[in-house]
């Protein structure tokens, strides 16, 4: 057999190259295996019947007409499946006494949000299923719905009457109690300056590109589920646990998945339902959602009220930070719903040296779509709050906001640095990133222009916004997750298989949904094994191929999954070594492995050595191996990180605000991120740009709005104003590099960085443009109307009290309130409109 040609020994340095992504042609052209492209013999199509009301008792469901409709094979209601469907899993009960209602896939006798499934129709075609779904006649008896977060926290009405309260759990971290810092209350008491603010994190919708879709085939020995999911491994386990099916009888496949942003980090009612209907009918079943169904019923993100109290000395040194959150769970707890705000618990202190810190979060139920992970999950909320607060502190002190940050941040000499939360930041250089960002931005010139515009009373005012952020990513050390009551670990698994032809299969448990793992993993393995980039095939997302893994979220893939791949590749080399030594008639200890070849140390540059591909073929034949050698070079590795990774960066944004209309326009955006070493700069750029747009969108455009009946009125892309490229500018991006010390590559996560950092930079810039009118906060998204009203309101002298009277804890003011609705009066007829902005 001479099929294999050993590569010439030339250096491969794939890591660091801006390789075009291997997967893009098929992903971009769509000529690939999306779940909805699956067609199976005899397949049925499902359509969900959803509740149009937010909270009601189901008093009757008549499915007769639907059953009789053309092409219909089955109609199932909650009554039909109540003993089969179990309760949808929540893997993260944050406290021992956390309260939560059962979470049925199909509501049985009560619906708790508008959009909840009440019945499912299976029919021969998708059209027949949709037609029949509309014939299912449901009687609802309305119950009082609680929609507003603060009203819910006050138990004004109950989202789930049986729970007796809307408060699910309260989670507290206190640095004095933990012994990681001082007492916040003392810090506040002794402070020269106390800044108190209340911010609103509006509700957002992940709005991934590919709507969700699930196919279940019950006809083989194992049930096979294809699903547009980020978490095939977790899904498989949870299906088994929820439905009482043997895990070994379930195979889950995430084929190509078109984005998730956390929105597909879920075990969905529809996955359970598709499984149940397939089992019930004995036929393959497919469910694919429409976009409006997706906006309505796929989980939402953010939705918090944040109260912040920051204590500082007169010279600007921060002395304490107190964080009190109310987090809207929506109607149910999804896979990690309660833990999302807790992922921010250790991040509000950010890059600053607060000696005292207190964090308390109360999770609250409302009759809305449930919330869960959305890009950044917990950390954007934290970053927004602290970066807004640092600006507020600067305003109180009458100082430049960058200068105040610089005074308080961890300097590069201080790494590794243990924070007030007890986390150890491994590396970073905030000075360097900031220096570079200011230079690219033209900070001083823009400040001068801002001054000129202010002085001339220009209609268009300029504002500069800063966000010097850090985040913790690379979820996560299993021990830490355990201490937070999370239901699983944070390790990742990989295998490297050497094929007889010299090709390499890499199996990763980290299942990508658009991030470019196939390319990055190929680059890593090409370097490790010295094989061509093209010869590496990356397999993932099928639990029968990649039998073990914890999937993709929390910027974990490269720092955890990538390290697992490296560990597996190293094992391959170790396994090959005895054979190489045998062939070279040398001692194992005298061998070197470089560029895909074993050579004998000190035997000169012109020795031929033996290549890995040749060894793979020799192992396949197994005709002539050293005694006792297992005929395989394949290796597995499971890696559990010891620490998070802490990327950071300095983001600077300039916004122009048209003071006549309130419209704002982005003038420039510069970010310098430090994400450690980089495997593929092109992929990094893609992640940063996409992240920036999503974060900017929270600042300016997106909001999930409910009316007073609990109907999602931003329920299509007409009203959920997702930006497009036409709405964004060219970003200026650059990097500084402080390699991470917690993995071999020295990399940190980048998947969420842009989204975490950008929101406060934009809002700070908008505010900076109009502070002179007495404005100190604007609700997100900063719509033209809100900006305009803030200016009107501020000019009328209604601005917030400042430092002197800040101690009066959150007196009845109304920061962050929507403008009142209109009360048009014509003649004797008055119209009250209670809808609109919720």
């Amino acid at each position, binding site marked *: 057999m001479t099929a294999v040609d050993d590569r010439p020994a030339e250096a491969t340095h794939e890591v660091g190259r801006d390789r075009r992504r291997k997967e893009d042609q098929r992903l971009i052209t769509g000529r690939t295996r999306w779940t909805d492209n699956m067609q199976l013999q005899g397949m049925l199509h499902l359509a969900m019947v959803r509740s149009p*009301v937010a909270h009601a008792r189901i008093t009757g469901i008549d499915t007769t007409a639907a059953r009789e409709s053309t092409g219909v094979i089955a109609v199932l209601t909650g009554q039909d499946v109540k003993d089969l469907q179990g309760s949808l899993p929540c893997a993260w009960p944050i406290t021992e006494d956390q309260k939560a209602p059962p979470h049925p896939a199909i509501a049985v006798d009560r619906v708790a949000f508008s959009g909840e499934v009440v019945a499912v129709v299976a029919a021969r075609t998708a059209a027949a299923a949709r037609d029949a779904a509309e014939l299912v006649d449901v009687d609802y008896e309305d119950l009082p719905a609680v929609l507003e977060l603060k009203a819910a926290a006050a138990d004004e009405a109950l989202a789930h009457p049986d729970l007796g309260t809307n408060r699910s759990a309260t989670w507290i971290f206190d640095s004095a109690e933990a012994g990681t810092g001082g007492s916040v209350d003392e810090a506040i008491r002794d402070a020269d300056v106390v800044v108190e603010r209340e911010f609103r994190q509006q509700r957002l919708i992940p709005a991934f590109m590919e709507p969700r879709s699930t196919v279940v085939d019950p006809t083989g020995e194992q049930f096979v589920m294809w699903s547009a999911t980020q978490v095939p491994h977790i899904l498989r386990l949870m299906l088994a646990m929820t439905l009482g099916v043997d895990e070994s009888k379930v195979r889950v496949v995430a084929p190509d998945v078109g984005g998730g942003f956390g929105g597909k980090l879920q075990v969905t009612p529809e996955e359970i339902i598709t499984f149940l209907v397939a089992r019930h009918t004995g036929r393959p079943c497919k469910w694919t959602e429409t976009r409006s169904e997706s906006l309505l019923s796929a989980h939402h993100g953010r939705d918090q009220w944040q109260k912040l109290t920051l204590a500082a000395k007169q010279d600007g040194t921060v002395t304490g930070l107190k964080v009190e959150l109310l987090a809207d769970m929506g109607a149910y707890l999804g896979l990690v719903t309660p833990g999302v705000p807790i992922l921010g618990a250790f991040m509000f202190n950010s890059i600053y040296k607060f000696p005292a810190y207190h964090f308390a979060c109360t999770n609250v139920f409302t009759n809305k779509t449930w919330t869960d992970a959305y890009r950044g999950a917990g950390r954007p909320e934290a970053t927004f709050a602290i970066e807004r607060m640092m600006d507020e502190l600067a305003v109180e002190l009458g100082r430049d906001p960058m200068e105040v940050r610089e005074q308080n941040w961890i300097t590069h000499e201080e790494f590794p640095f243990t924070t007030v939360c007890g986390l150890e930041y491994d590396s970073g250089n905030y000075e360097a990133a900031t220096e570079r960002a200011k230079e690219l931005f033209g900070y001083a010139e823009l400040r001068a222009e801002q001054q000129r515009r202010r002085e001339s009373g220009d209609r268009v005012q300029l504002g500069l916004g800063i966000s010097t952020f850090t985040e913790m990513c690379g979820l996560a050390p299993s021990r830490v997750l355990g201490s937070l009551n999370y239901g699983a670990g944070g390790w990742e698994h990989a295998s490297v298989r050497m094929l007889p032809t010299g090709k390499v299969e890499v199996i990763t448990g980290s299942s990508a949904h658009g991030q470019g793992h196939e390319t990055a993993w190929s680059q890593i393995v090409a370097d490790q094994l010295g094989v061509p980039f093209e010869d590496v095939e990356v397999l993932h997302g099928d639990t029968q191929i990649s039998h073990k893994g914890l999937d993709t979220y929390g910027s974990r893939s490269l720092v955890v999954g990538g390290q697992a791949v490296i560990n597996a590749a190293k094992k391959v080399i170790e396994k090959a070594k005895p054979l190489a030594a045998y062939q070279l008639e040398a001692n194992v200890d005298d061998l070197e492995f470089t560029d895909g070849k074993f050579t004998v140390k000190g035997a000169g540059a012109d020795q031929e050595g033996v290549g890995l591909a040749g060894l793979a073929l020799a192992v396949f034949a197994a005709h002539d191996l050293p005694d006792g050698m297992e005929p395989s070079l394949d290796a597995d590795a499971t890696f559990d990180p010891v620490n998070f990774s802490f990327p950071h960066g300095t983001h600077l944004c300039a916004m122009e605000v048209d003071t006549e209309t309130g419209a704002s326009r982005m003038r420039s955006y510069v970010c310098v991120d430090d994400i450690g070493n980089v495997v593929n700069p092109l992929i990094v750029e893609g992640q940063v740009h996409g992240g920036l747009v999503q974060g900017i969108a929270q600042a300016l455009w997106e909001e999930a709005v409910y009316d007073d009946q609990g109907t999602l009125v931003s329920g299509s892309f007409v*009203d959920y104003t997702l930006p497009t490229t036409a709405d964004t500018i060219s970003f200026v991006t650059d990097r500084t590099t402080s390699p991470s010390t917690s993995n071999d590559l020295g990399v940190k996560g980048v998947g969420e960085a842009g989204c975490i950092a950008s929101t406060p930079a934009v809002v700070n810039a908008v505010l900076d443009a109009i502070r002179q009118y007495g404005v100190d906060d604007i609700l997100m998204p900063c719509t033209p109307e809100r900006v305009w009203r803030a200016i009107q309101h501020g000019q009328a002298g209604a601005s917030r009290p400042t430092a002197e009277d800040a101690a009066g804890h959150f007196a009845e003011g109304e920061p962050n309130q929507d403008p009142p609705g209109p009360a048009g009066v014509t003649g004797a007829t008055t*119209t009250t409109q*209670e809808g609109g902005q919720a």
Partner: protein
Amino acid sequence: MAMELHHTFTVAATPEDTWALLTDLEQVGGCFPGATVTSATDEEFTGNVKVKLGPIGVTYQGEGRFVERDDEAHRAVIEGLGKGLRGLGNASAKVTLQLKPEGEGTKADVTTSMNITGKPAQFGRGVMQTVSDKLLGQFVECIEGKLTG
């Protein structure tokens, strides 16, 4: 989405005569734009409402009844509940009538409110607010017309 409209007008007829007309459910129900009353008793009525608006054409089927009726005080509350065809969601309306003598005639106070849930509210670009406003306006206009005309 909820809308409320308050309307006051005066009628030449006495409160008694006006009351008789106003509590005729067939008449009141039929005043809703696009409504057809299919059956009516003294207490309740059933019917459907077709809302046609440019490209939109939706039908609600439902029933209405008195939830409160005080023939002495001339005060009544009528509630209607409609289920949208084709999985549309629900619509409900509540009409509160109060008559008071005024000079020779009667002063009528009509408060109507309407709730719409489901697709029309979800997809409406907010237009449903304007629409329900308009429907309620036409409704009270019709009632006024019946009484004064």
